């Protein structure tokens, strides 16, 4: 069976949806000033651009799956590492999304039910292959973009530019905190690495297009949230949700329900992509996707019950290790091996 492929634009949007999902469920411990957060995002994006160089060159040179390049006889061994990594990411994403549902909405279904429902839907999406995920991702992106622009334009708050302040010594600690979080949340690098073999062409377009899109949208979000909501974000907790909480029109009094619809679909597509990556070592992708979803649901439930957060020390190291090893070191090693092989062929 030929390998199914997606375009650079579709991969870029899947990576973006994954990142925006993380922002959506990211609950700031404190949000006193937007400047350290905005600068942290800018610097972390620059670091990500550097970390992406081996990956972009490797796929631009026509490299295949890095696992097959490095271990031609046993590629599954390395693929299992990617599977485990994304199982944990998927589980934690769903656990945090469930936590968001429980904290912001009264009388929603039980946590276990929402975890099972999201993973069941994600397994179905993953079993349909990467092309289906790519197409669905494009639809969800436009839904998100429409909602974001609409919520920002009908926001009732005034713009107070006094809230944008220069960095001071006191801001250094939150700046480094956000910087560390930004870099460790760059699991788009291992994600790209795992999905690279499914990319038709245009690795640089997908990677750097994603970085530009992410930077523009998140900086715009942080800017709006800072000048409109200021300290109130701390009260509401979730920055994107907070933007919708202060938006109102004559015919839409509350954006909560629409917000939830878009985020629920986005969660399914993003987790579906993670589950799809988890099925890569499996010889039976359909059965593998349901098995991976079952494992992911278990991790999500444990994570939800134990209250594990993305910013916790151990998890921060786990995420960062994945980004460095699976997202940068593996493609760098594959690139060196590919270069040596091609030189030998000449």
């Amino acid at each position, binding site marked *: 069976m030929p390998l199914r492929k997606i375009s650079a634009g579709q991969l870029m949007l899947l990576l973006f949806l994954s990142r925006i999902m993380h922002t959506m469920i990211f609950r700031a411990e404190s949000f006193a000033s937007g400047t350290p957060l905005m600068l942290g995002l800018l610097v972390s994006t620059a670091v990500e651009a550097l970390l992406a160089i081996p990956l972009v060159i490797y796929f631009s040179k026509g490299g295949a799956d890095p696992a097959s390049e490095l271990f031609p006889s046993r590629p599954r061994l390395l693929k299992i590492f990617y599977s485990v990594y994304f199982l944990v990411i998927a589980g934690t994403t769903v656990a945090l999304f469930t936590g968001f549902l429980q904290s912001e*909405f*009264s*009388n929603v279904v039980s946590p276990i039910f929402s975890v099972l429902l999201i993973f069941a839907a994600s397994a*179905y999406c993953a079993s349909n292959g990467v092309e289906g995920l790519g197409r669905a991702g494009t639809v969800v992106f436009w839904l998100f973009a429409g909602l974001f622009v609409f919520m920002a334009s009908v926001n*009732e*708050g*005034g713009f107070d530019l*006094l*809230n*944008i*302040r*220069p960095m*001071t010594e006191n801001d250094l600690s939150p700046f480094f905190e956000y910087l560390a979080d930004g870099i460790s949340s760059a699991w788009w690098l291992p994600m790209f690495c795992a999905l690279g073999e499914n990319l038709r062409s245009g690795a640089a377009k997908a990677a750097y297009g994603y970085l530009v899109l992410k930077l523009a949208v998140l900086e715009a979000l942080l800017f709006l949230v800072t000048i409109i*909501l*200021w*300290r*109130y974000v701390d*009260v509401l907790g979730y920055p994107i949700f907070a933007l919708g*909480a*202060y938006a*109102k029109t004559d015919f839409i*009094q*509350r954006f*909560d*329900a*629409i917000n*939830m*619809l878009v985020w*629920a*679909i986005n969660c399914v597509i993003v987790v579906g992509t993670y589950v799809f990556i988890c099925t890569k070592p499996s010889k039976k992708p359909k059965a593998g996707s349901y098995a991976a979803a079952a494992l992911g649901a278990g991790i999500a439930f444990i994570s939800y019950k134990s209250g594990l957060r993305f910013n916790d020390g151990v998890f921060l190291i786990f995420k960062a290790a994945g980004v460095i090893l699976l997202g940068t070191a593996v493609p760098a090693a594959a690139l060196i091996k590919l270069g040596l092989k091609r030189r030998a062929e000449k």
Partner: protein
Amino acid sequence: MKRVLAAIVLSAALLSGCGKISDVRRRLVVHSIGIDPSDDGGYTVSYQVFSGGGNSDSGPVDASESTVKTLVSDGKTLAEAEEGLRLKTGKEVFLGDVELIVISDSLKDEGLGEFLQYFRKSDVYLGVNAVYCRGSASKVIGTKLEQGEAASILLREVVERAVEESRASSSRIIEISNAVSAPSEAIAIPLLEVKRGEDSGEDSTVSNLSVGITGGIVVSGVRPVKSADADACAGIRLLRGNAKRLSLSVNTSSGAASLCIDNIKIKRKLGFSGGSPLITVKISGRYKIMSAPENARESEIVSEAEKALLSLCEKARRLSAESGDDLFGIGRMIEKYAPSASKLYGGDFSEAVKSSVYDVFARLSEY
């Protein structure tokens, strides 16, 4: 299979909501909330609610006595009062449609901390105005102002109009919350008054009620600290830089004249003079004379109006400087434009507010 899945996904749009699942008949839709002190040290909370039961025909909803009611519930806390209302009526209390929150000025000493915490956690929209009222909030909430209109909508419009006319500061829950969470920053919450005039007898077309914003109560760090009159409230909007429109009456040598100043633009600049903050405020706007004595000179009216603007600013400045309550966002200006100087104050800008010097210029041009 795909169609079934698509139908399930689309149904999520219709079946999802932002509150508890409850039949509309089992809901108590609250339009406004009035908070008074109770005899036992708790709160008497009045809820103006929509009561659909009284409307038998299928015509448009008439918010008359039969459809709008004021229900009262007591509690040691606001949450307990809400629970009491739920038990009393047997309905789910829905606060997502609240238009206005009115707090009696008898509760001035209580502070706003508990109220803010309660409203943040409730379904109340964060853009709802919260105002103080002179006397009983229950009476204000229950006021019948105009046949066919709920008092809450009209009262909300009274507040919003005062804010539009720069006679009061906007006091949305989010704005109060943001202001009181900043060290030394303060906000003037509008003071609503409903006055009953002489009885108009049997003539039902003459209303003896007058409703309006007559000033404000300055709140700093969740605690009300002092009162401000209407002029000082207008001055606060000018010095804060967010006044857009203002109506003024001035005295000239020929008599009183009224003018409306629109399209107000305010530029604020921070400097330092002898170690104290120097705030330069330049106010410009377009005037329209609404009424004036026949022989009054336009230049004199405009000159008096410019002086009146300076006088409003002076009143606000004095109010702020007396206690060091930062009503104009001076602390944030220092943090933004003079970060090195802000270190000297260590986060508490009350001394900077007390010693601030203002250089205010007003220039009006014809509409």
